[in-house]
Every structure is written in C-alpha cells, then in structure tokens.
C-alpha cells in the first residue's frame, strides 16, 4: 500500500504547466526591471565600514552641536545672572571666593598626586630604610622615611 502510494505520488511529477503560460510568464518576468535596491552592487566590507563611520560621524556632530548649544546657553545665563544680581550683592567678593575655592581644589589635587606613589616604589623605598635606628621620643617623625617618600614621589 505504502509503495503504491509513493508510486502514485511520483506520477504527479508528470503535471507540467501550459506551454503558452510558461512562455508568457517568462517573457513578462524577464522584461521586468529589477527594483532599485536589487540593482545596487553588493557592498560588503567597505559598505559596512562606511556605514559605521557615517554613524560615528553623525554621533560626534550631534554631540558637538549639543555642547555648543549648552556652552552658548551657559554664557548667556552667566551674563544674565551677573547683570541682574540684586544691587546689594558684592560681585567682586563672589569672584574672589570662587578663585579661593579653585586654589583649594588645586591643593587637594597636589595631595592626591603625592599619595599616588606606585605601591612597588613605596615598598622598595620603605624596605631600604634602616629600622634599627633609635627613635627620638621628642620627634617621632622619621625624617629618613619622609625624605625617601619625597624622592620616590618625584
């Protein structure tokens, strides 16, 4: 039964389209111009790179535009704020305080730089300092250590 069924199914292969239909359909399809995207040459590597660059470039341009707008807005706001402060406000005093704050920040940054000695260098320096020297009770600071650390940080 199964064999007959399979054999019968294979006989369906004898079905073919009409000759006139085949010829007309073929002519119609082959005379159809391909769509715009279909006729574009394939772009592999270079196309992908170009697309990435375009995307990156447009992102950078957008970011730059935003920064320019924000910078402009800040300048405008600063002018507006300083020009419209209440008559009693000491503008010069504010600027001096801002300068002092800036100096404090610089000092803090110098301290950070000082403490930012590479661990290996510090360890090596501390290893080299003799630890059997007598400790001065009045001045417990070990000047050798300070000097060695100072040299290591430079």
């Amino acid at each position, binding site marked *: 039964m199964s064999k007959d069924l399979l054999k*019968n199914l294979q006989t*369906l*292969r004898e079905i*073919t389209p*009409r000759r006139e239909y085949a010829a007309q359909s*073929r002519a119609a399809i*082959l005379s*159809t111009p391909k769509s715009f995207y*279909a006729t574009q040459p394939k772009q592999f590597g270079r196309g992908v790179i170009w697309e990435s660059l375009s995307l990156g470039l447009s992102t950078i341009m957008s970011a730059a535009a935003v920064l320019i707008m924000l910078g402009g807005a800040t300048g405008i706001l600063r002018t507006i704020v300083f020009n419209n402060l209440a008559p009693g406000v000491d503008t010069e005093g504010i600027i001096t305080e801002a300068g002092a704050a800036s100096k404090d920040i610089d000092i803090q940054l110098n301290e950070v730089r000082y403490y930012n000695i590479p661990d290996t260098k510090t360890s090596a320096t501390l290893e080299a300092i003799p630890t059997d020297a007598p400790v001065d009770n009045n001045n417990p600071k070990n000047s050798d250590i300070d000097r060695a650390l100072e040299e290591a940080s430079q």
Partner: protein
Amino acid sequence: MLEDEQNLVKKAQDGEIQAFGSLYDYYLPKIYRFVLLKVSHREEAEDLTHQAFLKAWENIEQYDFRGYSFGSWLYRIARNITVDYYRGVKLEVSTEDVNEVHLAKDNSLEEDTERSLEWQGLVESIKKLKEVEQDVIIMRFVEDLPLKDIAKAIGKSEGAVKVIQHRAIKNLKNIVESKEENV
C-alpha cells in the same frame, strides 16, 4: 539540482537576464506543481507561480547559497505566497473545489480521464493533511527534494522534517484507505 546552478545564480544576481531565464526554465514545472497541488486551481496556480518567480527575480540579491539550493529558496517564496493566498482569498478549500481541479499535463493528459481521476483522488487526500505535511509530502515524494532543502524551505530542522514526513505519510495512507473503504 541544476548543473552549474550557483554560477547561473551569480550571473542572474549581476543582472544577466538569460541566466535567470535558465533557472526559470528548470524550476518552473517544479514550482508550478507545488503551487497547483496546494491551491488546486490551474489559473490561480499560474498566477501564484508567476508571482513567485517575479519576486525571486526582483529579490535575487537576497539569495545566499550557504549550502542550500536555489530551489529551496524558490520553494520558500512559493510557500509564503500560497500561505498569503489562503489568508487573503480563501480560508478553506472545499471538496467541491478540489473536484474541479484542472490537473492538466500540458493539456494533452486532460483526455486521460482515468489518470485525471486518480490524481484528483490523491490531491483531495493530500489536501486533508496539515499545511506543513502537505509541503513535505509534495517536496519529498513528488519532487524528490533532499531533506536539508525541505528543511530550509519550510524553516525547520532536518530532524523535524523527518518526523513530519513520517507522520504525513502515515496520515495520508489512512486517508486514502478510508476513502477506498467508503467507495
């Protein structure tokens, strides 16, 4: 598979009309049969087959070999077109529709009434299977397509195709047998 098929596809992708013409000549009977056995009407099968080849020609750039024949790609297009056809035009094919089927073999076999009746009975039985089972039966047992091409055409794994094939042939056998008992 058509000899030197990939070369023809490459030329067709480069816009060579005659290369696509050769592919068309080779695959037309196969795709037409597939569509006809699915929709059971000659005129509609002709329209849908034409649409399938037109779509293939317009989008041939999208075909990527990767070990699958151009035929499997065409079957996939034809399959999608018949699915859309059933969604949009006919939700169900009745037995009456199938009885009116024109299974012409280039017109000459319309006179062969006995063969025509055999085919009608067989097609009617195939139509009672699930959509995917119909696809596998036609591609595997009528067109003798390799499993991997069928898998690609219907979007399933080769293992799944084997299971569907087994189930489909069993169901088809039951349908044919019960039909013969009723006669």
